[in-house]
Every structure is written in C-alpha cells, then in structure tokens.
C-alpha cells in the first residue's frame, strides 16, 4: 500500500460532493423523537441513582451516617468515598477527578457530592437522601479570583505551592500556577508610544448551558464486566477514566454513546458516571443516574470567572509599540491552567514587536471548571479588543484599519512563541471592512462594535472503520461523537473519495469495544480529524477494490485505476474491458478474498488555527439599561466548508453563546458561597426573541494539512462576541464597558454615572 495515500497534505481537487448541502443521517430520528439521548434508555431491573450534595461552600466532613437510609425499603446501595478507593497510582490529576466526583473528607463547593443512593424508584431514592445524616464543620470560603490571591484568604488545599515561579514558594496558597509568554522589550516599547491605554476588566462565570442534563445508565456484572450508556463528548475517554477510577481493565467496560444533547466542552469530564458504576457494582443491578438542571449548574464544570489587566501602547501612525496583559482565572476547587491558556491567546491576532502576558491560575470554592468552547479565549479577547478599540480612538484611527495595520500574517512571530504559517486574520478583517453591515445606518440609541478572535483547533487520535456491504454500499463506524452533524460530513468525504453518491454511504458512532481509542469531540476536531481518517480509510478500501478487480481480470494491479466509483482497466490491450463497479466487486467479494474493508488509525495534527471577525449592532434602552442585538455578522475562515449549512450553524451557535455571555449570563454567588441562580429562569441564556438573524460569511483559505483543506471551525465563533457586543454598547452609551455580562443594572449604572459627570 502506498504511503502516499496516507499523506494528509492538501490535494487540489474539483469537488462533487464536498460543499453541497446533503440531509444528515440522524435527521429523521431527531425530528420524530426516535433518537435516543442519555436519559432515553432503560434496562430491566434498573435502579434510580441520586446524589447527596454539600450545602456548604467549604466544610470538613466529620461524619456520614447512612444507617437510617440503608434500612429504608427499596434502597439497594449507598456509597460514599469509602466505596471509591484510590486506584490513581499517585496521579494527582486523576485524584482531582475522583475527589471532584465525590468529596473525600472535605466539601469544596456548594453542591460537592458527598454520598449517593440507588433505589427502586426516584421517590424512594429522594427519601433515602433525606435520611443520610452528614456532620459538617463549616470553614471560611472564598469564591472570587482576586480575593483568593490575597494574603490571609481561606486556603483550599495545603499541597499547592505555586508552579512556574523562578523559586518555589515556602508557603502553600491558592495560587497554583504562574505563567509568562511574549518576546521583545515591553518597557522600551511603552516608552516609544505616543499613547498608552491601561484598563482592568472582569468577566463572570458562565456555563455551557447544554439543554440535556448529564445522564448515565451503568450496569456492572458480578464477573467484573460492565457496560454504560451515556451522553458524552468522548466515550473512549469516559471509559478510560471510569475504568481507572474503579480499578477495572478498560477492555471490560463497554461504553456506548447516546445521542448528545449539547456539550460545548462540558461533557468532556466524568461526574456522575463513576458513581453510577460504583452503585451498580454494589447493588449488582443496573443504575440510571440523571442529573437535575439544578445539579447541572451547581455541580458540573462551568468556565472560569476572570480578572484581567491590559496595557497597550501605540504611535500616532497606528503602530502598536507594546502590549502587556495580566490574566487571573480560577479552576474552581482544583488546580487548572486556564489563565495560562488565556495568556497564550490574548494577543494572538496581532503582529507585535514587544509583547508580554502574565497568567495567574488560582483555586476557589466553586465547582471544578471544565472547558467551554475555545476555553479561556473569549475573556482574554474581551479585554484585549476593548483596549485595542480604546487605543484606536485615542489616536483617532478607524478601529478596523487599526487592526488591519497590526494584524498577524504569515511570518509573524505569535505572542505565544512560534511563527505563523498561512493564516486568515487579514482576510476576515478586510471582509468585515467591506461588508454591507459596516455601512448600514445605525438606529437610535444604537452602537456598532467589531472584534476579532482566534482559536488553535486540534486533531488528535482518531479511528475509522469502513466496510463494503455485499450489496455494494458502504458503512462507516466512527469513534468521534457527532455533536452537530459530522456524520453527514464524514459520509460526504467517503463518497467524494470513492466516487460514489452520498446515499451509498452511512455513518454510525461505534461503541468503545468496536474501535481503537478516539479522543473527545473537542478542540474543533470532530469533522477535521474524522474526515481525514475517513479519507484514508476510503483510500485503503480503494486499494483492496483495485486488487479484487485485478484478480478478477487477471491483470497486474498497476493496470487498474479507480475512478468514478468503479475499477477501470488501463493500459494497452484492456480497452474493451467494461469497468467493474463497486456493486459488482462487492457482489463477488466472497469469492475474491472475503469482506472488503478499509481502516484508519491515526493522530491528526495541524487542524489549523482559525480566525474570525464579528460585527454587532446593539440598541441600548437608556431608561432600563437593557441591550438588544439588532444586527450581527460572523466572518470566519473555515479552510474548506464540507457542508456549508453545518459550518454556518457553528458560526451562529457560537455567536449566540457569546452574546448571552456578553449581555446576561453569570453565576451569582451569595455571601454564603452558594450559587443563587442554578436554573434557566435566572441564568438567562438567549431566547429566540432576543436575537435577529445572524449573517455568516465563510472564507476558505485552505488548510495545507488536510486533504480537502478543512480547518476546525466549531469554537472560534465564541471568541469575538464579548468584544464586539461590549464595544457596541460602549459606542451606544459613550462609556467603556469593563465588566461582562453587561446586564441592565450594570449598563444603567454606567449611563447614570455618565449623566452625573
């Protein structure tokens, strides 16, 4: 088999299937209610699992008395951390996961799991939870990033000594990591500047807000084998983590992924799954554990709240001479590196001679954070884009032109280190400048804002199995979860590669026992990496099909070419041979060597960075401070849009989440350290009447490291909205917005402060 066929490099091609808008294979199931999500499966004899959670933000757990609950008829198993022994082998990251799933001696946040129950029905399980008696010793708590850094703040863990400092500190603290990126000399750069703008920003904690709560159905058999039905962005990762945490071999735990009702990074982590398995193992019956909406907000993995300082210096001619930022993020109650990631992305859009970013990651008494669509980047972009906007105003330059002048391009040394290859930020800015949205007249009390954003995108481990059915059609088994329609894109890639129609190809998500490891669907890797693997699997299968044709015709393999879905005999003397179609070869497969298949196991790399520019028009009611988006445009580079409707869908969905984050969404913590708004009524995500149609423009600057030029697209569109919307509000009311979300009370305060000046 030629190694060239496994080459990921871009191939110049005229597409027949790629770029068309085909119907997705799961479409009918989803519009008829037939599709099955996490909570839609049941097993005979199943028990219902529920979790008891700490009502305190920070407390020592002195005693857990489960005796009364155990005596309740219908209760089949109760677990505490005593039922989850340490199999982590000293791996601190895995121990953090285990301890987050169930508290080990200390409750670290309001909602931290303390015990769990499996009973014959939900009503009995609820009664049992009430009978469990927990004795707490309440400790002082801290929920704010800057407060956690102060001397004398309540300490969460006594093993945290700040990493990344020139010298290891002698005292433990809540500050788990210090980071730095950049190049040049910012001190000299600021001296050179004609204007220097320095501002401090805050963003509040938000949740991915997927409509489907976490749900798992776990069944452990007495011989140690187990199966799990669960909604997840990565069933292989869930399998590996659950197996390790429960002391099982990975091959004995078979995980089937249900359809997923949204993830956005929030279903990349286990919370309830190890508990369901532990309960099932103890009760020797299947256990179904579904989280309530309250639990989803309170006890899963929201993103970080942040505090960010930015300073930018520029000359009157528009050159940025220096850029600096300090970013402070938290990981919730366990150490994470989100601020470091924010420090990498903060100035990524710009070509800077002198740049420095400093990051501080801390722990606070909030739930362990998880990734949320381009994690850490939206907050950093909010702070940087507003400072860029303010700087442009200070030197009297158009904000788009200012960005175009300082935009990163091929050959720019990025603010996080490496030099860029071919990238699309310049084209998105120019497209924004020329977009009709920019010239449209503004309504009353309305401001316009634009901002750019950047995300890395990833590849990762991917496996695909392709099989040709005896009737000449193709099935694909992929291991990467389909969150937004990628099954269609994968089938399109195979159809394109094999020269057959889309309808001849059908893609499914296989379980963990049927394929090799697949990384999670995160990092915008779903379509990028799975299509690459599918293309290689198809090329693999084409080789086999050619071999079968060669055998049938009794001619050398080199004289068989695959074209338009059939094997053609090439070369002198074969002109009168009719081509052998896929159907014909499949029909005789049993006699020519057996079933025909193609496989691909690979690590896809270089999903290609993705840039976007957004334009927002926001109308602000001067009497209430309420903001309304009147027009919104997304311009983003997709490399190659396999299915334009799904790419548009990613752009629009990410923008809507960013708009919610900018205007209304925030976690409200009380003085008692408890989350006050753990429901959709008071955690206000955008509804249909909040938004206009969202215009999209897909640019296609091919990714040289994918056969069809595909870049990851799913995440970047959440990065610019905080900047674009806040700049629009700033322009509408004439006061720089420094705190997101810009909820009506905050905006009203700005308006009133300005009036009184």
């Amino acid at each position: 088999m030629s190694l060239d066929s496994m080459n990921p490099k871009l191939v110049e091609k005229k597409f027949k299937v790629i770029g068309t808008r085909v119907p997705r294979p799961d479409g009918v199931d989803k519009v008829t209610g037939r599709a099955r999500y996490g909570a839609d499966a049941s097993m005979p004899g199943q028990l219902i699992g529920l979790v008891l959670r700490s009502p305190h933000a920070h407390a020592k757990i002195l005693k857990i008395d489960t005796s009364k609950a155990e005596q309740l008829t219908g209760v089949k198993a109760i677990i505490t951390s005593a039922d989850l022994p340490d199999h982590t082998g000293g791996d601190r990251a895995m121990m953090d996961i285990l301890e987050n799933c169930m508290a080990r001696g200390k409750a670290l946040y309001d909602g931290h799991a303390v015990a769990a129950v499996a009973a014959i029905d939900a009503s009995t399980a609820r009664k049992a939870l009430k009978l469990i008696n927990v004795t707490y010793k309440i400790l002082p708590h801290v929920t704010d990033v800057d407060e956690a850094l102060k001397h004398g703040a309540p300490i969460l863990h006594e093993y945290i000594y700040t990493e990344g400092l020139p010298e290891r500190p002698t005292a433990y603290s809540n500050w788990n990591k210090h980071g730095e990126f950049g190049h040049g000399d910012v001190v000299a750069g600021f001296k050179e500047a004609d204007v220097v703008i320095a501002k401090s920003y805050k963003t509040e904690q938000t949740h991915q807000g997927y409509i489907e709560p976490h749900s798992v159905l776990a069944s452990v058999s007495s011989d140690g084998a187990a199966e799990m039905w669960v909604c997840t962005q990565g069933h292989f990762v869930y399998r590996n983590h659950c197996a390790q945490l429960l002391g099982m071999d990975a091959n004995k735990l078979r995980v089937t992924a249900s359809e997923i009702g949204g993830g956005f990074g929030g279903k990349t982590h286990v919370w309830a799954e190890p508990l369901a398995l532990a309960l099932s193992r103890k009760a020797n019956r299947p256990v179904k554990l579904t989280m309530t909406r309250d639990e989803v907000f309170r006890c899963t993995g929201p993103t970080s709240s942040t505090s960010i300082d930015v300073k930018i210096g520029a000359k009157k001619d528009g050159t940025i001479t220096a850029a600096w930022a300090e970013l402070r993020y938290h990981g919730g109650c366990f150490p994470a590196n989100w601020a470091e990631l924010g420090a990498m992305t903060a100035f990524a859009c710009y070509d800077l001679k002198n740049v420095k970013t400093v990051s501080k990651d801390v722990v606070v008494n909030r739930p362990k954070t998880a990734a949320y669509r381009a994690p850490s980047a939206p907050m950093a972009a909010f702070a940087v884009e507003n400072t860029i906007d303010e700087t442009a105003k200070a030197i009297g330059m158009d904000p788009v032109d200012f960005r175009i002048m300082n935009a990163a391009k091929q050959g720019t040394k990025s603010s996080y280190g490496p030099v860029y290859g071919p990238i699309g930020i310049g084209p998105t800015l120019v497209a924004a400048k020329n977009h009709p949205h920019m010239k449209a007249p503004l309504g009353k009390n309305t401001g316009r804002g634009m901002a750019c954003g950047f995300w890395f995108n990833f590849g990762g481990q991917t496996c695909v199995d392709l099989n040709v059915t005896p009737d000449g059609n193709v099935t694909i088994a992929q291991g990467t979860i389909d969150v937004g329609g990628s099954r269609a894109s994968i089938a399109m890639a195979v159809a394109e590669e094999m020269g057959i129609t889309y309808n001849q190809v059908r893609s499914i998500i296989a379980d963990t026992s049927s394929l090799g490891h697949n990384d999670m669907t995160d990092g915008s890797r779903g379509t990028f990496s799975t299509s690459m693997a599918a293309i290689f699997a198809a090329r693999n299968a084409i080789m086999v099909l050619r071999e079968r044709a060669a055998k049938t015709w009794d001619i050398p393999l080199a004289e068989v070419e695959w074209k338009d879905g059939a094997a053609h005999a090439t070369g002198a003397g074969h002109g009168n041979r009719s081509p052998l179609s896929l159907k014909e070869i499949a029909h005789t497969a049993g006699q020519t060597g057996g079933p025909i298949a193609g496989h691909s196991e690979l690590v896809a790399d270089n999903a290609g960075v993705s840039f976007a520019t957004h334009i927002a028009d926001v109308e602000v009611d001067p009497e209430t401070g309420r903001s309304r988006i009147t027009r919104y445009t997304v311009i983003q580079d997709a490399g190659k849009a396999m299915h334009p409707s799904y790419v548009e869908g990613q752009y629009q969905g990410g923008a809507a989440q960013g708009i919610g984050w900018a205007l209304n969404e925030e976690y409200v913590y009380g003085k008692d350290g408890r989350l006050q708004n753990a429901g959709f009524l008071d955690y206000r995500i955008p509804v249909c009447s909040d938004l206009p149609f969202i215009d999209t423009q897909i640019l296609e600057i091919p990714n040289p490291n994918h056969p069809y030029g595909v870049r990851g697209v799913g995440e970047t569109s959440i990065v610019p909205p905080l900047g674009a919307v806040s700049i629009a509000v700033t322009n509408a009311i004439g006061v720089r917005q420094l705190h997101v979300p810009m909820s009506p009370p905050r905006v009203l305060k700005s308006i009133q402060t300005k009036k009184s000046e």
Partner: protein
Amino acid sequence: MSERVIHLWGALRPLVGGTAFVKIDAATIAELFAKLIERYPGMESHIRRGVAVSINGEIYRDNWGTPLPVGAEIYLMPRVPGG
C-alpha cells in the same frame, strides 16, 4: 551541528535555571522528551501532563514520532485543551 534549539514557555524556564531556550540533540519529539527528562528531571511531571511541540509554526500534540528538522523553529507549549 545537530543540536536543536528548543524554546520554552514561561512555566518551564525555572526548571532549566531560568533561560528561555535549551539546546538538545534529538531527531524526534520522543527523543527530545526523553533527553529533557534525563537532563532536567523536573520536566517529567509537565511532559506527563501534556506538552505540545510547535515545529515551524505547526503544532503537534500527540505524534511523538514527528521528526525535528535541523534548524527548525521549535517551541514547547502547554498542551491546550479544547471545548
């Protein structure tokens, strides 16, 4: 001169005495990591937790067999997660 210049991000610099880059003779990512751990044992926990390697601007997160061309611009970066 088969030594590669390996640029380090901020958090790794204290582990090598504070410098921004080190010189290691390694032909692949796997060899690079092995030699770094050998020379600077403090690197081990970082590499285990995940380090990405940028080679001439292209970021490799997993493929440890990837060759490191002589003279290439090589940066170690945190292994960034997505969402």
